[in-house]
């Protein structure tokens, strides 16, 4: 049997003919990176290839690494294997990685969603033979409502809190979710304050998109000024001493996990908004169908359950162990992103 075009090794997804890794979790010579979240773009590789828009994110997180930016659909060949990056719609600069060799096409999604969030370049369906997909929310219990409705709810919540003299503290991961929230909050309700981690990451992304004005909360920020306004912070800020400055406040989290009442109650958060940067159940099935692929490999999420269902639908589907995402549960509210390095140490 021929060696498959992409193999799952202890270092990451490996393309042997090209000697290149996709989103490796151990240091390698050459890595193609799908997007900037910590579980996909890691330290220590000798060279990085990623989309142009992801370059500043990776540099912000990992420092001055040896990195090359590519455009959407731009093909590049390494040892005879053709690679190209295509929008994944997950966060700004997130790509699917297409790998073609001797007539065989594989696509690795990294993380993705089909809904246009108005910020990330919208997902583009790529035909392939083998589709390597995440399935973070690969259960029929996950069905998202359109983001327009969710943001109507979020803005309404903010306005109500303001009317009650309370500050709204909204938790979202500092890369991706925080900017998506920012983009769609209604600045006519009040001012938007930020936690340092959110402010820094947003500053990196401001050249790539337009965001409303934000104000960083510092030691000098006056308590009275914050009252009734919006504060965006990473989930790790919940329960910290930092947050006391916002008193009186109410908390909310925006995440796909908020679909479960238990997940919200466990975190002792007042309000949960179901807003995810991953596919829900119908979108996963739709994406897979549209690729035309017969072979499906599930990398992270509810992989066992999801791949079993795909087999019942007639796909040749299996699971491969990777180090993407947390395990299958909402251990943190990060939607599968393990790390909050340096964001809010030891809170």
């Amino acid at each position, binding site marked *: 049997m021929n060696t498959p075009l992409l193999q799952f090794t202890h270092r990451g997804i490996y393309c042997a003919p090209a000697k290149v890794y996709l989103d490796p979790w151990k240091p390698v010579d050459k890595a193609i990176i799908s997007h900037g979240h910590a579980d996909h773009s890691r330290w220590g590789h000798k060279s990085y290839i990623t989309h142009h828009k992801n370059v500043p994110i990776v540099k912000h997180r990992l420092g001055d690494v040896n990195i090359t930016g590519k455009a959407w659909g731009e093909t590049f060949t390494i040892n005879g294997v053709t690679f190209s990056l295509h929008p994944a719609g997950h966060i700004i600069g997130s790509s699917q990685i297409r790998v073609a060799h001797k007539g065989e096409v594989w696509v690795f999604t990294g993380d993705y969603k089909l809904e246009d969030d108005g910020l990330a370049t919208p997902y583009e369906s790529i035909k392939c033979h083998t589709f390597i997909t995440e399935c973070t929310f690969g259960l*029929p*219990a996950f069905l998202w409502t359109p983001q327009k409705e969710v943001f109507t709810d979020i803005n309404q919540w903010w306005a109500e809190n303001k009317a009650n003299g309370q500050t709204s503290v909204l938790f979202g991961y500092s890369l991706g979710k925080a900017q998506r929230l920012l983009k769609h909050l209604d600045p006519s309700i009040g001012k938007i304050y930020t936690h340092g981690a959110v402010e820094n990451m947003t500053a990196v992304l401001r050249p790539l998109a337009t965001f409303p004005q934000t104000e960083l909360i510092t030691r000098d920020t006056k308590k009275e000024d914050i009252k009734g306004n919006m504060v965006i912070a990473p989930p790790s800020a919940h329960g910290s001493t930092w947050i006391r400055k916002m008193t009186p406040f109410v908390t909310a989290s925006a995440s796909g996990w908020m679909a479960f009442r238990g997940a919200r109650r466990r975190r002792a958060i007042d309000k949960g908004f179901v807003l995810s940067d991953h596919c829900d159940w119908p979108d996963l099935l739709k994406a897979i169908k549209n690729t035309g692929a017969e072979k499906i490999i599930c990398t992270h999420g509810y992989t066992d359950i999801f791949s079993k269902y795909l087999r019942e639908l007639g796909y040749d589907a299996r699971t491969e162990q990777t180090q993407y995402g947390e395990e299958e549960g909402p251990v943190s509210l990060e939607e599968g992103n393990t790390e909050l390095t340096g964001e809010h140490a030891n809170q």
Partner: protein
Amino acid sequence: MKQFATLIKTLDSTNKTTKKVEALANYFARAKDADKVWTIAILSHRRPPRPVNTTLLREWAAELANIPLWLFEESYHIVGDLAETIALVVPAGETSSEKSLTVFLEEMIALKPKEEADKKAYLFENWRQLNYYERFVFTKLITGGFRIGVSQKLMTRALSKATGIDEDVLAYKLMGNWDPNTISFQDLVLEEKESDYLSKPYPFYLAYAVEGEVEDLGAVSNWSFEHKWDGIRCQVIIRNDELFVWSRGEELVTDKYPEFQKFVGPIPNGTVLDGELLPYVNGELGTFNDLQTRIGRKTVSKNLLVKTPVILKAYDVLEWKGKDIRTKTFVERRKILEQLFRTIPVISGGAEQDRTEQLPLLLSERMEFKSWEEVAQERNRAREMRSEGLMLKRKDSPYQVGRKKGDWWKWKVDPLTIDAVLTYAMRGHGRRSNLFTDYTFALWQENNEGKKELVTFAKAYSGLTDKEFKEVDAWIKKNTLERFGPVRSVTPHHVFEIAFEGIAFSKRHKSGVATRFPRILRWRKDKKIEEANGLEDLKALISPSPQSTPQKEEEAKNTKE
């Protein structure tokens, strides 16, 4: 329904008790009377019987969601709540129902005797139409068990806020046996009626555990002591030649304990006793494990009555000659109780007694001590006395309502502990859904070939911090050996120190031992599994008693076969 679903949504959207009370009080101020009665009933666990069994619910939900049943089951294991799973997987309806909560409940009651096809049509119609929250609430009403972080106490407080009626009075009114289908809000809450009070118990006075040092409670001479009996806390009411037995869970359990019917007559009408219901086998107190055989049964066989009779160990009297005497001091109330005991034929010790003339009643002996050291010594005798420790009651205290600090304290003996190996894990429910937090533990035992193997002995799901649970959860997911539905077997690797209150031989358990209130005391990361205890170590903790030695167990088994 819209109003009730909005209430549940509001309760769900806050983590603060004051906000919850406010939302409930607003609801009680605005809702229709019939809906209010049903809301009180639901929040105090008086739901109507389930009209459709859960097997059918699961099949039908899977059918409507167009997914295989196994996939529905997997989703349910992860979501952790059946109604929530159904509300999530069936295609979203968008409409809101104008029908009231009462109408829905009446429909559900009417649904129970109907044909399966009618039931299915009813469910499909509502699942298809209702929006997410109404669909969730609707299904929750059908599955029952409305636990949404609102205790009865919290609900009572809100009702008090909305009606202006004193909270304690309300707690008293809402107790007991009332049918939401027939009672009006006026009758249940607003109206004062003497005849209604015939079966009604008083709210139990509950003790807190001693904090810090007992010496801080002041002069030992101010205190009266009793053993803390390990049975079921009960109020026994004799009024108008009728008997009512209430458990602490405010459940009327009169029918489960027919031996207490003997109280009617010898004990004068207008008497309410507070005490502990205990098994009394062969002339002495049994263990909680003995009692287990009685708790679940609604009808009691003659055989069981002979095998495991129960008695009431009385410690207080709340009503005497038809008068509420809770404001009298503890010592005064005890004088009345002890006087009563002198006038009635209660149990006397010894196995060979003919008990036909005796009432199944014992006095919880009152003790006084000269020093706190003496108290501590008595506490050390707890296991020997078949008690959980001591009760400390201030001599001049009234009988209060609910859990109040100051006058009554419980001072339990330190728990027994053993080091055991984690062998199975299951996902939790509610706020712990999707996390592996329910664990099974095992101890070493030599098998027939002289090899050591692990034998399951207890389940525990409390005692770790959220952070530790997360850590164990992540480990379990990486070290799963096999899956059995929601349960996973894991590589034996971690040792935990398990604490428990009591222990007895048991035929119902694989290990041959039953532990009471097992919980995790510590994660012993310093120990290897080889260092965990053996089943023999556990058995050695069982205090000797005539009816629970292994020998007797063996004999009992033999005679049975």
